């Protein structure tokens, strides 16, 4: 029967999955907050990051947790260049165009991965992937605990960048008032690209944290991004705190739904929440109405 210990484990596991959701959502909401556009290529980029981490491990023998330090700057660069060289110039500031360009990129990347790597699902075997810890009455896997900690650190770093660096100040200025920021001498195109880079770097970290316990195939990122969309909408578009809390919340809800209803219905649950939130509270639980 339902023991509090099992329930506690489910909640704890949910929190840890939620932490990764939160990280993916953080990247998405950061980009939305500044560029005011949903990046439909987010899922495809997460998949690219997963493959990058996989290759780093299989070909170069780099542990995923170490690879995070390598891939995060690399993906920052990738995101920066994508926005600076592809999305920005192609969209010419038109929202509808940005939507289509990121959709086109998503389709392009996802199917290029499918073409190169085929639909096979891959996993890696790490010696420590199945080590467990006991926290009170609950038993948790080491990689999940590590993910929780890493997400906390990443969020802190991101927060510090936004709060204390001049680039962070410029990002916040552009998010609030693009024209004013431009008049104050901020290079908006550069800040857009930096923001896109930061959002993409979040994905690289998330991918490295996921890899020890998750699988990789050309559609792997999509499952996460749909959840991330839900979180971002739930938390209020552009709200970093909202993304963090929303991510943890969704993680727990999913874990409990899977616990009570079974896995396949869990996804429907997320979609239903997503549509309901979009229809009823499009500005999110923590967002402000405009």
């Amino acid at each position, binding site marked *: 029967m339902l023991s509090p210990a099992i329930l506690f484990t489910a909640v704890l596991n949910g929190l840890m999955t939620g932490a990764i959701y939160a990280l993916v959502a953080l990247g998405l909401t950061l980009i939305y907050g500044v560029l005011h556009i949903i990046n439909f290529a987010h899922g495809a980029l997460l998949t690219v990051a997963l493959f990058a981490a996989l290759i780093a491990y299989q070909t170069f023998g780099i542990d995923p947790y170490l690879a995070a330090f390598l891939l995060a700057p690399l993906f920052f660069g990738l995101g920066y260049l994508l926005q600076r060289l592809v999305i920005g110039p*192609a969209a010419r500031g*038109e929202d509808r165009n940005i939507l*289509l360009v990121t959709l086109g990129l998503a389709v392009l990347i996802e*199917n290029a991965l499918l*073409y190169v790597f085929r639909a096979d699902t891959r996993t890696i075997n790490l010696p420590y992937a199945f080590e467990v810890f006991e926290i009170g009455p609950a038993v948790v896997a080491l990689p999940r605990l590590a993910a929780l900690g890493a997400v906390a650190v990443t969020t802190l770093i991101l927060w510090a960048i936004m709060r204390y660096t001049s680039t962070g100040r410029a990002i916040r200025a552009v998010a609030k008032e693009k024209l004013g920021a431009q008049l104050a001498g901020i290079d908006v195109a550069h800040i857009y690209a930096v923001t896109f880079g930061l959002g993409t770097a979040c994905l690289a970290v998330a991918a490295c944290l996921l890899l020890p316990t998750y699988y990789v195939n050309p559609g792997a990122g999509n499952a996460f991004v749909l959840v991330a969309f839900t979180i971002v909408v739930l938390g209020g578009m552009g709200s970093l705190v909202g993304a963090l809390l929303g991510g943890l919340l969704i993680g727990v809800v999913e874990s409990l739904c899977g616990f009570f209803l079974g896995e*396949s219905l869990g996804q429907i649950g997320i979609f239903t929440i997503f549509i309901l939130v979009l*229809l009823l509270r499009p500005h999110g639980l923590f967002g402000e109405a405009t």
Partner: protein
Amino acid sequence: MKGVGTILVVAALLAAVPLFGVSNVTLNFLVTALIIALAGQGWNVLGGYGGQYSFGHAAFFGTGAYVSAILQLRYGVNAWIAFAAGIGAGALAGAIIGGLSFRSGLRGSYFALVTLAFAEVLRILASVTPITGAGVGLLVKLDLRPEAFQFQSRVPFYWIILALVTVSLLIVRAIENSRFGAYLVAVRENEEAAKALGVNVIAVKLGAMVISAAIVAAAGGFYVQYFLFIDAGIAYGPWISIEALLAPIIGGVGTVFGPLLGALVVKVLGEAAKLVTGDAPGLDLMIYGGVLVLVIALAPRGIAGVVADLRARIVRRKPEAKPEQPTAGHHV
């Protein structure tokens, strides 16, 4: 009415194609291209003229397909009636999804997201519920009689899909010339201004959504009759949502012939890719994604826009050439 003549001439020329004894492969290619042209025209009504970019028109394609197939298989309904019912069901789905989204004031990214989500929910539901054949899909029974909307040869299929496309062209032409069409374009260009001028924005968008959904559902219903098979991935999968928006965007968004032109280009590209590298998974969609980015970057008004620009340049050059010479001295 203006423009109808052109549509009928194009339709007549296309209708004559099978008379020249083209191969089944060519005919098959044309039929699939016309299915995309039809779906693309549906998307064009809402996206091109109304400016509401849906990323989930698979919701209507799949509904048209499934309702038609289920009525035939499970309830023994005549295929033609089932096809019509599928169109009706698609329109209803459009009314429901559109009603919910537009009433909540969703537009831009939000509208794209919510349509995508609706299509995905339907895809997951269709892949688990027994009535849709769950993961296995539905096979329509072979019954090669015209009464059953099945034919021995591909030629009648070709003419039927061509007729459907022609009807969709005429519908869009009629919309262009109507007051409703003017409202729709006003909503696309500036929703607030349209509202201020007394346009009932929600009603106009909803009308466009219902027409759009019905046309896409017709494409889905035809797909079932032609291939006699449907599953959740085909019916509600992202491929059709993407091809339905790609065709008008490549051909010329918000133009009558854009989707037809774009669908032919899309399909030629897909086939060319297969010829070059064999039937590799993902290759056609990979090219579509790249083309989408390139078109937005280089020719955002599609082929129709490029043609219009060229024509304008030629027309301008002719009259300008003469008067320019005497006045040239004043400018220097």
